[in-house]
């Protein structure tokens, strides 16, 4: 080989440049020289010039002015120039460049050249950068070459055909016959090309796939030949005969055997043979085994073979080579849903891989471990996962945390374990958990009333150690506020008792309030918690008052609002403070959503927001169906009625429907109105039957507006459930039914049900109302009707 001296001199010059600037200077000079040379029509060193340009291009400098030179060189009759020209075309002329079309003709000519090396250049270039246009033009040529007698050309033509099929799918049809006949070749290169071509054709079109299924026996034969045959020096790699061809054939068999019983049967024996005979000490053998396993798991193989495949993967998991462990886990991930038990057997090894140094292996192990968690192994798996979480790389933390939460939710063996696990995750990876973790955890805590004492002690201790993890701090503040009295009592069954004074608790909360690490949300939690403690502690109420009043002038608007409201609670409405800051009721699971955030802010006495929400969605469909009935029954004014419709619930609406029997006091919390002494509205009993009493009172709100309050009570011995009221009024009157306060009536008048009805009577017609009562008592549904013709107070 004759070294290209001018090229090497230039390379030496560029490499000796000491700074980037110097290098740029050298390159600019060289490029100028090259450009000048290009303009000259003919000289002996054309190939060297282009080679120089290609080197400069590889360093990252622009070289587009060499494109036309490539075209010219490809057309040259000299082999050396063609060689460099084609190389330049592959590097500079991709199909996006306009100049690429210009070489189509040269390629066409060279494909029929007498010398096979020139043909090979053309084939290589076409396969590398041929555009769809060029492929369409030259496809017939390629097909002709596929039938030539020269195996050197045939193998290249096969791969060129693969590229053509990838670019122009329709041309696949053209190559099917030649591809079929190539399978009978002995030359491995041609055979390999043929297998690649058939794979490509089968992947593109299902009909072609059907036709090629008949080749399965031939492929099996070829594979058998490769596996059993003796040492062939030409193709041997570390004891495996032509692994590249073997892997390709296995891939094709996979595609042909997928979803097809007959084809899968035909290859069962072969796959078993390959799986057992291949030497797995070197990477090459493992590559073939890997492909075999993938094929077995993808086709309709018999169970014995499947077990064999999973066992091979199990062996891979124990291999010292990290690469092999990595691919074993990748494959196991694919089958963990279908062959769950088989994969479970290797759980120990997989969990060990969590401790591997390599981040790729760790990631795979994490995914697989999370998929393997089940009710029986939850405790041990969680231990491992939590250890992993404390030492895992940051990019995997969020995934690990959410995976742990999901697993804990599905398989938690006990509530205490569940809470402990979530607390553990919050302390180790608190910054990477999702936002809804905080309300989820709070809901979980309120639901486990027996562990309140334990939980609040644990959280208090966690708060003392570290206040940087925001979700943890938020939950801790909330719990201390709610269950502060349990904390101060000191004794606790589950953990050892520790004496906590009121000052300690207030100190802790104050630290959170003042720390620069606390977000505004966290501060809000802490302030509310401090406020709640005012009813749960005895001595330091003044301290709380001072804390709260300080924040009355805080810059943060949210905190300021809260502080001002709490101040008002201290000053003007001190009598209500105890009632307002009472223990929260158990939060229903369905009520999670937007209302959740507001729940902690607006302590309400008798709030059942979750139930009400469900109630409201349930009510609208009902009246529509029964409107017709009421229509028929409404005598008198013969007006089509307005079915009662409920308004969608938000917390403020909820408040207006809140038991008005408690007086209008609660309304004042929001706006700070002056409490208006409510004159007891005149009530009249409109319905009394079977122990169920319905009373009605109304109040004129404005010229045409009227508020009617319906109150129901139950004096029987049994509970009543599903209690609903429907109302109909004359046409010109507008009616709006608010949500009822409850839907059940306990026995012996345990609680009353109230529903507000807002009427608007602009035409001042004679007001009548027909009310339908329906409820379930002792298993039977009762429905009744009552008409109200006169309204008290009107």
């Amino acid at each position, binding site marked *: *080989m004759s*070294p290209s001296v001018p*090229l090497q001199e230039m*390379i030496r010059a560029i490499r000796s440049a000491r700074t980037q600037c110097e290098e740029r200077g050298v390159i600019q000079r060289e490029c100028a020289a090259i450009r000048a040379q290009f303009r000259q029509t*003919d000289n002996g060193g054309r190939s060297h010039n282009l*080679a120089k340009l*290609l*080197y400069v291009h*590889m*360093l990252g400098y622009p070289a587009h002015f060499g494109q036309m030179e490539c075209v010219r060189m490809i057309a*040259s*009759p*000299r*082999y*050396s120039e063609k*060689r*460099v020209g084609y*190389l330049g075309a592959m590097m500079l002329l*991709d*199909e*996006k460049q306009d100049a690429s079309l210009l070489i189509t003709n040269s390629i066409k000519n060279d494909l029929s050249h007498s*010398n096979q*090396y020139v043909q*090979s250049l053309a084939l*290589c270039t076409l*396969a*590398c950068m041929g*555009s769809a246009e060029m492929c369409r033009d030259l496809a017939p040529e390629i097909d002709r070459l596929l039938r030539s007698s020269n195996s*050197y050309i045939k*193998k*290249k033509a096969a*791969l*060129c055909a693969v590229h053509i099929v990838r670019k122009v799918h329709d041309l696949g049809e053209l190559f099917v016959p030649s591809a079929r006949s190539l399978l009978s070749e002995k030359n491995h*290169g041609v055979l*390999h*090309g043929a297998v690649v071509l058939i794979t490509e054709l089968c992947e593109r079109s299902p009909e072609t796939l059907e036709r090629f299924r008949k080749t399965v026996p031939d492929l099996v034969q070829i594979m058998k030949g490769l596996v059993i045959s003796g040492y062939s020096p*030409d*193709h041997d*790699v570390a004891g495996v005969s*032509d692994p*590249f061809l073997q*892997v*390709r054939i296995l*891939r094709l068999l996979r595609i042909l055997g997928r979803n097809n019983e007959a084809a899968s049967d035909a290859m069962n024996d072969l796959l078993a043979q390959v799986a057992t005979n291949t030497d797995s000490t070197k*990477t*090459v053998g493992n*590559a073939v085994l*890997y*492909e075999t396993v*993938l094929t077995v798991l993808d086709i309709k193989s018999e169970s014995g073979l499947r077990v064999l495949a999973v066992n091979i993967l199990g062996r891979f998991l124990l291999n010292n080579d*990290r*690469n*092999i462990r*990595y*691919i074993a886990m990748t494959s196991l991930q694919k089958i963990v849903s279908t062959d769950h038990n088989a994969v479970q057997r290797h759980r120990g090894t997989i969990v060990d891989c969590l401790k591997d*140094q*390599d*981040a*790729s*292996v760790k990631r795979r192990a994490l995914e697989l471990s999370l998929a393997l968690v089940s009710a029986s192994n939850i405790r041990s798996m969680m231990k491992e996962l939590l250890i992993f979480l404390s030492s895992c790389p940051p990019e995997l933390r969020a995934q690990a945390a959410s995976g742990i939460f999901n697993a804990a939710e599905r398989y938690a063996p006990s509530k205490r374990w569940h809470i402990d696990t979530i607390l553990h995750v919050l302390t180790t990876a608190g910054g990477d958990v999702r936002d809804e973790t905080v309300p989820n955890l709070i809901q979980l805590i309120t639901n486990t009333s027996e562990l309140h004492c334990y939980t609040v002690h644990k959280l208090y201790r966690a708060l003392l150690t570290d206040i940087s993890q925001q979700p943890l701090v938020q939950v801790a503040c909330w719990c201390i506020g709610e269950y502060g009295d349990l904390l101060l009592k000191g004794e606790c069954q589950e953990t050892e008792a520790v004496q906590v004074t009121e000052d300690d608790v207030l100190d802790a909360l104050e630290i959170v309030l003042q720390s620069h690490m606390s977000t505004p949300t966290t501060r809000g939690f802490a302030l509310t918690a401090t406020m709640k403690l005012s009813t749960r502690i005895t001595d330091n109420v003044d301290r709380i008052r001072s804390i709260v009043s300080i924040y009355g002038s805080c810059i943060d608007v949210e905190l300021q609002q809260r502080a001002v409201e709490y101040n008002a609670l201290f000053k003007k409405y001190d009598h209500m403070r105890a009632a307002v800051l009472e223990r929260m009721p158990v939060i229903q699971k369905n009520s999670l959503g937007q209302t959740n955030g507001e729940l902690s802010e607006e302590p309400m006495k008798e709030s059942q927001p979750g139930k009400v929400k469900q109630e409201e969605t349930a009510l609208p469909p009902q009246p529509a169906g029964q409107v017709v009935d009421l229509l028929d029954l409404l005598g008198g004014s013969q007006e089509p009625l307005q079915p009662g419709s409920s308004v969608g619930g938000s917390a403020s609406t909820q408040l207006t429907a809140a038991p008005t029997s408690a007086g209008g006091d609660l309304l004042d919390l929001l706006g700070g109105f002056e409490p208006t002494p409510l004159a007891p509205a005149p009530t009249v009993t409109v319905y009394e039957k079977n122990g169920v009493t319905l009373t009605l009172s109304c109040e004129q709100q404005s010229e045409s507006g009227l508020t009617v309050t319906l109150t129901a009570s139950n004096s029987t011995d049994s509970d009543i459930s599903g209690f609903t009221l429907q109302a109909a009024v004359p046409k010109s009157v507008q009616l709006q039914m608010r949500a009822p306060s409850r839907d059940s009536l306990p026995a012996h008048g345990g609680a009353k049900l109230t529903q507000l009805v807002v009427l608007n009577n602009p035409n001042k017609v004679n007001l009548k109302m027909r009310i339908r009562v329906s409820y379930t008592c002792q298993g039977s549904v009762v429905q009744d009707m009552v008409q109200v013709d006169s309204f008290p107070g009107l």
Partner: protein
Amino acid sequence: MMRFLLLFSRQGRLRLQKWYTAISEREKKKIIREMTTMVLARQPRTCNFLQWKDLKIVYKRYASLYFCLGVEHEENELLALEIIHRYVELLDKYFGNVCELDIIFNFEKAYFILDEFLMGGEIQETSKQIVNRAIESSDMLQETMEEYMSKPAF
């Protein structure tokens, strides 16, 4: 199929690039930058496989050069390692104890060898001897043609 093959040094300088799909220059530069950063950041005894976008990246280090192959999803990663090794063996046979400098100063020869071994993103020839013989014959052709043809025949 293979999407690209990159060779770069420990300092991140590109020594060879082969692309088997049509991508713009900007896109190529971006991929090269990302590959070099990703691969050079890897610890010594870690796994040779990486997941990047929808491709699998298989890389191996030989002396001062990193060979980085970007393959599609269905490809066998262990076989990709074998492909890289086969290419190194071919270079070694051709240059005789190949080192990085050989590839720097004779980059066009490295490309010619690659083009005899891989084509269109697939393996072209599975026998080492046949590839070597083909390269030798092409080189011979180049020399004889140069001697024989003193003027261009058009």
